[in-house]
């Protein structure tokens, strides 16, 4: 295999479509010939785009085999991007979460329901001290 034949077979060698015997011959030529080896390394820099199998590139890029949904096409045509939508949704979610937290903080009871039920008497006593009935107030005044 001469240099011309070797370089002509670079694409098939890259795509691993050469018969094993021919691939070995090519590889041994590359070991002997510095110019062809350098040419192959230059070739390898663009081969991932020019010579790689398209399905393998799809798999490497994680591209699904489906057309873009019509709704997404319309959004893009209107100049909207997925990123801008995501930002709006995130801002809205944060606003709602902040409102819920503020509401809960303002209206939450000091005791849990079970605590309030079990300490019902004590609570009544405390409230009685804080807000004495009108009769005791009148007694003190009278006394």
């Amino acid at each position, binding site marked *: 295999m001469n240099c011309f034949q070797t370089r002509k077979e670079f694409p098939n060698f890259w795509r691993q479509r050469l018969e094993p015997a021919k691939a070995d011959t090519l590889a041994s030529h590359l070991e002997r010939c510095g110019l062809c080896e350098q040419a192959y390394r230059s070739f*390898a820099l663009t081969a991932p785009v020019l010579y790689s199998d398209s399905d393998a590139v799809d798999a490497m890029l994680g591209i699904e085999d489906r057309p873009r949904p019509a709704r997404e096409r319309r959004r*893009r045509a209107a100049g909207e991007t997925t990123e801008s939508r995501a930002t709006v949704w995130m801002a809205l979610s944060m606003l709602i979460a902040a409102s819920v937290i503020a509401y809960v903080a303002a209206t939450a009871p000091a005791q849990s329901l079970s605590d309030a039920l079990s300490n019902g008497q004590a609570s009544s006593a405390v409230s009685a001290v804080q807000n004495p009935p009108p009769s005791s107030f009148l007694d003190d005044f009278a006394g």
Partner: protein
Amino acid sequence: MTAAAKLEGAEALRPDESLVADVRAGDTAAFAELANRHRRRIEHLCRRFFSDSELVRDLTQECFLRAFAGLASYRAEMPFAAWIRTIAVNACYDELRRRRRKPEELVADFSGGELEWVELVNQASPEELAGNAEERREAYTLAHRLLNSLRPEDRLVLVLKDSEEMGVQEIAETMGWSEAKVKIRAFRARQALRKQANRMMGARRFRMFK
């Protein structure tokens, strides 16, 4: 086999030209079938020119829109597959010309992964390289960067000749150029690529000793 399945089989075997006739008669669903058949091939062709997946999808859709709009001018002497490919090639060429070439960006900065890949290209055995490239996104992005440094017409000829395996005469007919122009462009493209590849390797050495 049920009647429906038989009908489905017959639909699958219908030639493109028959579907084109249906579209011309007003059956737009037939065009959806045509688009389904050829979409992936056209996407793959566009991906040889551009690394941006969104752009590739947009271009593919533009091709089919152009095809639908121009279906009245389609002549059956050319297979539909070749006709839609010509539309795609022209759409990609238009997009390449719209973009400014940035040869200076090529050697400016390698990412870590790109530098690793260039190192591998320099050191790995020839057999190892091919298998490795298919798993490395950096190999793909770097190849696009290298190809981006070419003039649009040089890149076009290179992709059609090497990736699409089109002959000089076929490329000349597709683009409306002379065969001599195609040959000159192919030669200049390879020359420019070699030069850029050497610059890239030089930049790698520079980065290594920095």
